[in-house]
């Protein structure tokens, strides 16, 4: 079966810093794939290149077999993306953002309206009907971002830190939506540095460290008998063990 997302030999260098160094990953269809790594490990850069938002120095990516760079039209209709910290059409309300993007994707107006209504109410954004996106809180921005990723019914979701700054109630809602998406045959890649969350949601996981894949496979393969956190710290953690204390804070 064609992989939902096939990343092959991706490389990216910023100035002197090698951000992503020959990353190969294969996300099987129907999988819930977690990408974990420390801050600056290269998760965001990898995902940006995988969906066509950043041009790689080397390598490429295919979404359900469609090359992201040579066949973007097909690849990009199959994927929904939630990037981290990017701007939106800031002077629109949440509903208007969804209407705008739905029409941009070529959906009929009635479909857009119906989906927007549903997304806004499920994500509890319908109360802020008159608020412009620029006035949204960080958590609300994540939620409207997720709504835009889901709007066109993609087969693959690529989510960069989808739970950051989201309150526990909304997080539970989002988890339900995502689980339902996978149960319905969809595939998800999400990046996070919250191990418990990845363990709870994902069936596959890849550990990225210093721009390279340190481990990848099904959750059980990667974590073995221990917890994912222990495996992760073992793979990427500092060699001197025990955590450091701040001298001026301990009495």
């Amino acid at each position: 079966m064609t992989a939902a997302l096939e990343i092959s030999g991706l490389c990216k260098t910023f100035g002197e810093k090698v951000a992503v160094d020959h990353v190969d990953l294969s996300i099987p269809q129907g999988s819930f794939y977690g990408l974990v790594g420390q801050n600056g490990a290269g998760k965001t850069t990898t995902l940006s290149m995988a969906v066509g938002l950043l041009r790689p120095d080397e390598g490429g990516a295919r979404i359900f077999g469609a090359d992201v760079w040579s066949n973007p039209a097909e690849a990009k209709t199959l994927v929904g993306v939630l990037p981290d910290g990017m701007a939106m059409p800031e002077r629109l309300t949440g509903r208007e953002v969804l209407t705008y993007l739905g029409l941009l994707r070529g959906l009929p107006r009635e479909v857009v309206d119906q989906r927007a209504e549903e997304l806004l109410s499920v994500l509890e954004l319908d109360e802020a009907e008159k608020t412009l996106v620029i006035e949204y809180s960080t958590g609300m921005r994540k939620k409207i971002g997720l709504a835009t990723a889901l709007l066109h019914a993609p087969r693959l979701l690529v989510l960069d830190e989808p739970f950051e700054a989201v309150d526990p109630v909304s997080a539970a809602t989002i988890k339900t939506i995502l689980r339902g998406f996978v149960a319905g045959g969809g595939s998800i890649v999400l990046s996070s540095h919250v191990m418990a969350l990845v363990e709870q949601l994902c069936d596959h996981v890849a550990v990225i460290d210093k721009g390279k894949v340190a481990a990848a496979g099904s959750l059980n393969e990667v974590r073995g008998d221990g917890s994912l956190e222990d495996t992760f710290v073992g793979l990427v953690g500092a060699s001197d063990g025990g955590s450091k204390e701040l001298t001026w804070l301990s009495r």
Partner: protein
Amino acid sequence: MAVALTMVQMKVAVLRHSMTGQRAGFIVMGALVGLVLAVGTIFLAFSWADLLTAVYAVWMLGWIFGPVFAGGGDETLRPEYFTLVGLPPRRLASGLLVAAFVGVAPVISLLALTGLTVFGARQGVVAALVSVPALLLQLVVFVLLSRVAVALLGLALRSRVGAIGAGLINGLILATLGQIWVVFVALGQTQGIPPVVTTVTRYLPSGWGLVAVEAAASGDWLRAAAALGGMALLIALLLTAWAALLTRRAGATRAATRGRRPMRATTASGAVLAKELRTWSRDLVRTHQLTFAFAYGVCFAAAPLLMNWNGMLPWAGPIFVLMAAAMSANLYGSDGTALWLTLMTPGATDVRGRQHAWLLAVAPLAVVLTLSLAVVTGGPEPTLLAILLALLGGGAGLVPLASVYALIPGTDPHRRGGNPLRSTEEDGAVTGMVYAVLALTALTAVPAAIATALLGWAGVAVGALTGVLCYWGFGLLAERRLLAEGPELLDMMRTGRRPAAKPGAVGRTRFEDLTRRQQIIAMICFTTGAIPLFPQGVVAGYLKVSESSTRSWFLALYLPSWLQWPTIVFMVVLGVAMYTTGVIVSYRRKESPVAGRETVTSTEAA
């Protein structure tokens, strides 16, 4: 003082890190232009001291209005950085004030203000001594006026009424300055600067330094003390005002309660149009820009009414169009990383929608303005209509084109903090772009102007044709560029850095790729090459040919006459050689490119 010193160190560190690549190039270029203006000002102190107060008034207006149109002024250190430190507002303001003197613009202005010392030295030692505190106080006044103006405008831009009001006032002031000659003529002065200007500019805060120096020279100590004390008092007042404004800014939240009209679009292009039109009306910075352009056009064209000539009146429309194009020059940059959505929906015609929206925001107003004023003044003439049509198309084409080809990375709208004007860190580049788009848009009307001069009314058709061609062709180019370089543009927007030249690209060496030594050589050559070439060479040569008695600082003219021509020629050759060296050093490929790093995108591989 500790706070101030820390802030100065912070600012120096930030500036040092931002002096890379093209941005350093822009800073150097801006510094160069400033240097020429400063030297010109000092030059006036030697020859036409009467003009000095007027010129300092222009410097002051530059400090006040520059930031309004070029990225919100210097905010290397944002007040928000210090909200959690818990400084009292006055200490925060004084700290930021001290740090504000670190930078190119204050240094250039200080240099320009040494004209006061030059002027004082010509009057005597005492006046020269008084000029030192005078020029320092004067600089503080400039910097503080600038900060207070930006803070006030930031406050005004929190409401629609404020944005429109500020746009009208700014348009009125700048158009009046642009048409100042009309005012002179109206005052019955047909040549030179009327004495009233000298008097008025003397009373403006920008003239107080000169007043102090003059008074000291004539022994009028009371007047000198009053002028210096006045500046000190003004500084204290401005500082208090600024401190108060800073607290307003940090504590500001804005709740939107207004009803929103529903989006009725049903197609992709309709959606882009609806999005853009909403941005035009809801983003108060854009509202301010449009109102400014409108007020500028009307005031500029109406100014000659002061001398009972209404022939210029209908031109308010075309001037409005020109200004509106220049103001929206960095269209894509102002939306920041929202570009990712365009990249994720290939096939959507973002550029066309934006062009359409720009036209809808500008054209109806411009057409009504032009036609109604033309009727008032005796019917439209072909030139007017031809140029209006050409400019509308030219602007609608050039605005997106310029913003994708010369994109200036901006700050994302939701990250601008308390200063809505702060759309980018690169004020110099934005200023340059505004002028470039202004000039280029004006150029798009040239064929129409020529055609009407030759053909009369048939020229209107030519104007309409070039307008449509510009709209269509430039839009197409912009669309293509966005498609081809979209990810690079997004990356530039996200990181604020311009993308690296691809290895193997010919003649595209970046400044930061040069070695430190090459950078220094290139910078010295570019910044100082103008001195031997123009003033010491060309201008000196011109003065010699015209047998002028002015010698000023032209070295050659002080030498024995048999040495004068050889010196002039030497200076010209030196200047040209310096520029050539600069170009050669910058464009020579770095000798050791990173081995084995080839750019292979999957597109090329496929």
